[in-house]
């Protein structure tokens, strides 16, 4: 265990910021999914960091991290399936052309 908790949290925050920027700015649905993965993993990183530096949270953090990994995997699967389904309909991966919700 090297370094301090702060450095992990800063790294986690940076990753989360990159992820959320990607989600808001990228037009490609696949890229947006990847951005979501980045945000999830940023949060997961901070959870693991808390587990490593705060003894009381050690076991909880491990459990939460595992659950988050599982949920992220499931979410990625569903998300990818959705994107493919929409792609088949609209013939484009660009989300700003998905306007069905406004109709």
């Amino acid at each position, binding site marked *: 265990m090297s370094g301090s908790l702060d450095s992990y949290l800063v790294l986690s925050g940076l990753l989360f910021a990159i992820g959320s920027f990607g989600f808001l700015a990228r037009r490609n649905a696949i890229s947006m999914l990847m951005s979501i993965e980045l945000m999830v993993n940023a949060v997961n990183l901070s959870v693991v960091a808390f587990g490593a530096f705060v003894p009381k949270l050690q076991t909880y953090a491990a459990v939460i991290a595992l659950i988050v990994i599982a949920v992220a995997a499931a979410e990625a699967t569903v998300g990818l399936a959705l994107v493919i389904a929409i792609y088949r309909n609209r013939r484009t991966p660009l989300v700003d052309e998905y*306007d069905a919700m406004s109709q």
Partner: protein
Amino acid sequence: MALVPLILLFPLLGFAATGIFGRSYPREAHRFAMAAVIASWLVASVVAVGALSHGFGFGDHGAGITLWRWIPAIGFTADVGLYVDSLTACLLLVVTTIGMLVHVYSLGYMAHDPGRWRFFSYLNLFMFSMLLLVLADNFLLVFAGWELVGLCSYLLIGFWFPRRSAAVAAKKAFLVNRVGDMGFALAIMAIWTQLGTLNMQEVFAKFGAVPHEWQIAIAALLFCGAVGKSAQFPLHVWLPDAMEGPTPVSALIHAATMVNAGVYLVARANPIFGAASEVMVVVAAIGIFTAILAASIAFTQTDIKRVLAYSTLSQLGYMFAALGVGAWTAAIFHLMTHGFFKGLLFLDSGSVIHAVGDEQDMRKMGGLARKIPITYATMLIGAIAISGLPPLAGFFSKDEILGGAFKNGFLWVWGIGFLVAGMTAFYMFRLIGMTFWGESRVDPEKELHIHESPPSMTRPLILLAIPAAALGLAIGFPPETGLLHQWLSPVFESTIAAGGHAEAAYNFFGIDGALAIATTALVAVAIVVAWRLFGVEIPALRLRAEARPEQVASLSQARALAPLYRGSAAKWWFDDLNDLLFVRVGGRLANAAWWFDRTVVDGTVNGIGTVTVGTGDRLRRIQTGHVQNYALGIAFGLIAVAIGYLLIVR
């Protein structure tokens, strides 16, 4: 006692079976209905014999049976329970016997009607409803039966609904009945609030503890219901129009059974009315007023069924007068005898109408006595019975009513009732005269087809003529101590004792005998007058009188009588009054209310809708449908919440 539910079950099954299968098997449809009504009659007879003999587990005051809890709400309960005592038994006998005979009669009368299965299923439903009304042991169940008979009445008056007048008459009957039914419903609510139970026996036992003003209110409201159903003034207008229905229906529902429901209700609730003597006077007044009003209208009607309808009103008025003066048993006595002879008269009129080819106008009849002898003979018996010549049924029951009114100190009731007895005899023999006596005025082409009705119609006539002739002697003699009085005394004794009108012994050679002779003499005079005016030929007695239409005409035009004649012929303008009050003025009010509803109430509701739609339409533009717009919103929201948290909470 275990047999009692069967009385109800058979007609209900008959109704269901006829109603479900009737359309598919229209030729056989009547068989279920006939079987059901005969089975019901048999069981009812057994039960009635048991209850009237005060044996077989019925006891002096009858016995009840609770089938199941109907409404088990907290704070309000009502059971489905049946109760049979001697009063119920008397009604059971009348309803099931006449009901059965009318079913038999309808076989012939409705033989060629394509809607026969519908007719029989309605008739069975009516039997069920009427028996439910009579057998129920609590007011709510009576009310259910009460509404059901009203429904059947509506369906059967409007049986030939393609004819506009029938549909209108059905609607009129239904609406006028609602006015009375509202009173009945309010009475039930008042009973519940005052006593916390609707079971009749419990209500009667505890009724003395109710404050007197509530006693008056409950009795008056109950009477309001009775006025509607039994067509008393001022709600009498529906009954004459109800004659638009098929004649068996007029006989069964609008003469012999359903219209008696009001009389039955008042008699059944005798402890309630006994406690409210003020209402009793009203009952007597309305009853005797209806009696003379209807009799006066019957004088000039020319439709054979309408004469009988007004006669029914008049006789029901007698019954209410009897109830009002405290002659309870006499009222039930008259109810029973009237049920039989009026049922007979209506079926006879149906037979006449059948014979002359669906003609109801007596001005186009006449001279039918020889052509339809069975109908003539039985109708004559009915007419003598209703007029009250001894020893036929009507004499005994009418005599008891008049005697009761006289002896209980209601001299004015007696006086009017005495007059009505004479009027009754006159208009009945006017009817007989115009229909059966004198020259034939039938259309020539119909004249050829005049024929006596088939046996399925004449046999019920003969069977009904027997009680119409002999029932009075059988259960009403000697007067005021006869069988009926022994049967019914447990029902009424406590009320009579409380009312102070002790039933005096009948004095053949005193006041009672004198009253009976006076009434009989008046009736005889009235019959002779009618005979002189409308003509008759009785070869056996070598009596012969010509019809004197010119005399009838000159009498009706005489200066003193002309206004009376016109009033009577116009039914004293009650229909016109109702038309003015409720159709014209009421219609204006309804139109005003409709306008208010349309512009103010609907305007408010629609305005709210319009505003909502407009707002939504504008807000909708914010929604672009692009995922990233929403995500941006979430991100900014998150940042705003975080900043707010840091600024305010920290």
